[in-house]
């Protein structure tokens, strides 16, 4: 049962007292989207297997592997209230990665692009720790967070602050935040030469967001964010990768939540428009359906569509761009679209929540809204399987 906010406890007049009584009966927060202080400690664990499809043999150069990435992921999370008004969230993640990634695209005598892969197998582990401290107030919340990520060839330190204000009887909220990340890159040396031996990059990001309750079953949120990258932005494991040393990104998001009472289900609609000064623009639409079945089961099917245009300096054939200052054959900078879908099953048993989910992701140049003749051969398809639990201490 959800915790009642302090602001909703009986105050001065009769109307407020009646309001509070109604809330106590319904067991509801006035606005769960404002991130009230959690009323109990929760511990969560998830195991995921992320697996990319092997490449078609006719998309890789003779002698090159068709194998791609496979990652085992372990996630731990603790969320706990602290004292009267604080809470803390601790996330830890461990990944074990193996596989290969595209090193270069070359065009064969028939004019078809072929991939040269990075080698038979790359093995790496990533460890991440993130901690977030929240101070909850009657009229909002402020938070500070720190995140550390470490791999054999990559280290990242990031931190930030967030502020959230509720107003208009908690019908509306405005939040803003700033974050900064400092990343060090030290590529592992192997058979193929890397773009650098040691380098670094920085990222600064700011956002402003607002939410508004439309009616008793509907709420919207919109946000605008700006991110500035500078430093070594190339992929060191790609040959001839010459990207600008700065990047300015804009993103606008619009989210909607709607509860359908007769179906006991919630509809989530999330949209993002993205634009940057590398010439890349994208649209992302995600729709999820949270179907309650009785008091213990929940099914969550979702569908996501993504489309991006290519970066100004993307190309499959390096020789055609030899005189240009910037060039990349990274498939992630090509024009393509992607469709993914999946299903999550949640089962609640007393203080335990058991969850199982799966996702299938397929990308193709033909799915792009902005068509382009240069389809990158390295576009990825992947499957993800996740299982885990969350335990609530009471």
């Amino acid at each position, binding site marked *: 049962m959800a915790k009642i906010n302090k602001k909703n406890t009986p105050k001065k007049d009769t109307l407020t007292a009646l309001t509070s009584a109604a809330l106590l009966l319904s067991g509801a927060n006035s606005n769960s989207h404002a991130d009230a202080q959690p009323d109990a400690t929760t511990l969560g664990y998830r195991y995921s297997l992320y697996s990319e499809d092997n490449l078609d043999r006719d998309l890789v150069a003779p002698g090159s592997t068709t194998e791609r990435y496979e990652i085992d992921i372990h996630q731990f999370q603790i969320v706990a209230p602290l004292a009267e008004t604080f809470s803390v969230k601790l996330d830890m993640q461990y990944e074990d990665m193996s596989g290969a*990634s595209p090193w270069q695209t070359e065009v064969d005598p028939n004019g078809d692009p072929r991939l040269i892969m990075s080698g038979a197998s790359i093995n790496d582990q*990533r460890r991440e720790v993130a901690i977030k401290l929240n101070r909850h107030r009657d009229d909002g919340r402020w938070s500070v967070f720190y995140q550390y*990520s470490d791999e054999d060839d990559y280290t990242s330190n*990031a931190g930030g602050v967030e502020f959230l204000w509720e107003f208009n009887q908690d019908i509306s909220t405005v939040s803003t935040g700033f974050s900064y*990340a400092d990343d060090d890159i030290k590529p592992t040396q192997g058979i193929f030469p890397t773009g650098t031996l040691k380098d670094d990059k920085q990222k600064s990001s700011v956002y402003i967001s607002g939410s508004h309750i439309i009616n008793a079953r509907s709420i919207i949120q919109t946000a*605008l964010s700006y991110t500035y990258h500078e430093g070594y932005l190339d992929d060191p494991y790609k040959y001839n990768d010459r990207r600008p040393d700065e990047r300015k990104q804009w993103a606008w998001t619009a989210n909607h939540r709607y509860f359908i009472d007769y179906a006991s289900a919630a509809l989530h609609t999330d949209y993002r428009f*993205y634009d940057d000064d590398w010439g890349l623009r994208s649209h992302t639409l995600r729709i999820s359906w949270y179907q309650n079945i009785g008091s213990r089961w929940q099914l969550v099917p979702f569908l996501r569509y993504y489309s991006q245009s290519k970066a100004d300096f993307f190309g499959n054939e390096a020789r055609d761009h030899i005189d240009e200052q910037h060039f990349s054959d990274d498939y992630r900078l090509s024009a393509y679209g992607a469709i993914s879908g999946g299903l999550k099953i949640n089962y609640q048993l007393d203080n335990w929540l058991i969850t199982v989910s799966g996702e299938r992701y397929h990308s193709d140049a033909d799915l792009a809204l902005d068509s382009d003749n240069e389809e990158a051969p390295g576009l990825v398809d992947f499957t993800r399987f996740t299982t885990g639990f969350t335990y609530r201490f009471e």
Partner: protein
Amino acid sequence: MNPKPTISCLPIKLIALAALILSAGCSTVEPWQRQDLARPEMAWAPDSMGEQLQEQAYFSKEGSSGGGKASGGGCGCN
């Protein structure tokens, strides 16, 4: 003529659109009418661990990223 909006005017258009959306609903929903809004499945991110993992996969495999909240650090994900 290039129909694509420039970076400099895009934020102004998006802020104006956001303000329009936020000002669209002026109805009053009393606190005791918000029990459906307070349901866990109505949260912006009901499963933060699941969302974190999905965002990381999209971040490392797609050309665009970010939006709507404070962003963390990067990774050497290929």
